[in-house]
């Protein structure tokens, strides 16, 4: 603090509290809405304080007893979301650790070509090439499957790029020392490189998990079988009724359930999250 200006300090705290309030407002209303019977909505008003149906609503939505337009219960879609998010995260980390390792620590013919083929994907999000990607996945007979949900979203170079940056900062003496001690490339990878990139891997894990969990367009397009629905995309199905018939209490329970895992990750691992965010976009 350079000078003491009590009034400005008050404005600072006030602005921040106001900001927090506005940011939290929709979640507050959603929480309140999730505790009322569906008859409480549509009467030209929405309840602003908690009702007594909380347990009932959350339980019936979670177990799939509430009508939702989807044939599988919410816990099952949550499982699908976890499988997809973890699949994308682990898959991306796996392929990008290996390819970054090859590109940084080996010299081989066509290394430059490999580099460019991989890095050109930095430029195109899946949303842009959605129709042809769908056709390719349909040709490979991977519609309505976990591999169809996961593999196309792994095709991105952000993680590879990041690991390449991280590996390039490692001192060359490390490899020399490892080689003098008789360690081969595989041993070097597992015993030196992996432990040294632990924090980077963890930070990236957090970001990728959120990215994977929140996928919407891709699952909407390639899943027609309810058994492969993810939680985030199921919201579309629940809203696909006449406007007056939307069961807001159930929709809000689903929305909140779909938010909880990634939000918990951000809050619980804030340090890693911030690091991952800054690294990934630098």
């Amino acid at each position, binding site marked *: 603090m*350079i000078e003491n200006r009590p009034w400005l300090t008050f404005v600072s705290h006030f602005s921040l509290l106001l900001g927090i309030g506005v940011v939290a407002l*929709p979640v507050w209303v959603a929480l309140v809405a999730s505790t009322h019977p569906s008859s409480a909505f549509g009467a030209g*008003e929405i309840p602003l304080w908690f009702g007594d149906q909380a347990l009932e609503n959350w339980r019936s939505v979670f177990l799939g007893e509430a009508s939702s337009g989807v044939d599988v219960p919410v816990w099952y879609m949550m499982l699908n979301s976890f499988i997809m998010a973890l699949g994308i995260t682990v898959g991306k980390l796996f392929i990008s650790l290996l390819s970054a390792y090859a590109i940084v620590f080996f010299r081989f013919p066509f290394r430059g070509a490999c580099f460019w083929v991989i890095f050109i994907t930095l430029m195109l999000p899946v949303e*842009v090439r959605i129709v042809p990607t769908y056709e390719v996945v349909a040709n490979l007979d991977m519609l309505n499957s976990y591999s169809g949900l996961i593999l196309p979203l792994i095709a991105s170079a952000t993680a590879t790029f990041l690991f390449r940056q991280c590996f390039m900062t490692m001192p060359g003496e490390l490899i020399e020392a490892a080689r003098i001690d008789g360690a081969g490339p595989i041993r070097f990878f597992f015993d030196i490189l992996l432990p040294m990139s632990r924090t980077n891997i963890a930070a990236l894990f957090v970001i990728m998990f959120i990215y994977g969990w929140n996928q*919407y367009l891709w699952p909407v397009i390639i899943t027609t079988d309810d058994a492969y629905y993810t939680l985030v995309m199921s919201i579309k199905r629940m809203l696909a009724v006449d406007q007056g018939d939307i069961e807001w209490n159930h929709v809000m329970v689903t929305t909140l359930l779909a938010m909880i895992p990634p939000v918990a990750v951000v809050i619980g691992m804030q340090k890693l999250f911030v690091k991952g965010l800054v690294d990934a976009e630098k």
Partner: protein
Amino acid sequence: MNLWQGAVLMSVYFPHKKLPYLLVLPQLVITLIFFLWPAEQAFEQAFYQEDAFGLSREFVGFDNFVYLFNDPQYYKSIWVTLVFSFSVAFSGLAIALWLAVMADRVIRGKLTYQTLLVWPYAVAPALAGVLWWLLFDPSMGPIALWLQYFGVDWNHFLNGDQAMTLVVISATWKQISYNFLFFLAGLQAVPRSLIEAASIDGASPFKRFWTIVFPLLSPTTFFLLVINLVYAFFDTFGVIDATTQGGPGVSTATMVYKVFNDGFIGLDMGSSAAQSVVLMFLVGVMTVIQFRYIERKVEY
């Protein structure tokens, strides 16, 4: 980070012949199948006209592009995209900068404030849209009822501008957290001695901000502007699809939404592919701008 340094050499490396190929193989295969093949298909399809059942197609040259750029609907979607993206970017940046400046000032509870402001980053865009829809629902949303009480006839299902406002609010809400973190980091990197010197010279906090802090933040601001535009272009599909589905009419149908809509709902594959190609070109330009800028930042 510097993308164009493809040839940077590690001074020491492993002399293996086959192992490196094995290591890059998984990523190469995935990239070829799920990236290069579809991209190539998009390019090819952009030059063909396919019938609605996908049974036959004929080569039509640049007809799809000619048609696209003579279609008033396409210009409308470009306009919608520009309005949407710049609204999201500017409101997101302004609010986040304000909050970050305030958070940079406080001594107590900085981390708590940060925690309570960054969590919306983790909310899926589609869910953000649904949350705000509830608040603005014309028949029972608290904010909509409140607006109606004051004589604003809020109904985003009928009014295109109001629908646009709703998707902009939802998309901005989610992005504030991201901008806030980067602004806060940028503010903390401003040398304290500069601020102290200015305040000894009698500059007010307001003046100090505009003459010292804001100019020093400009690299961060520009970087965030590009990132926010990319976000508004591509990552907000869920917001639009869950709340307005591009409507009413086409008043919230952005370019990305139109690619999806023409391809999967309208089944006009040729036009959708041509639009994909145009978007790929746009992303390419944005990426080059981004990297050019980042290279400069490294030299700073």
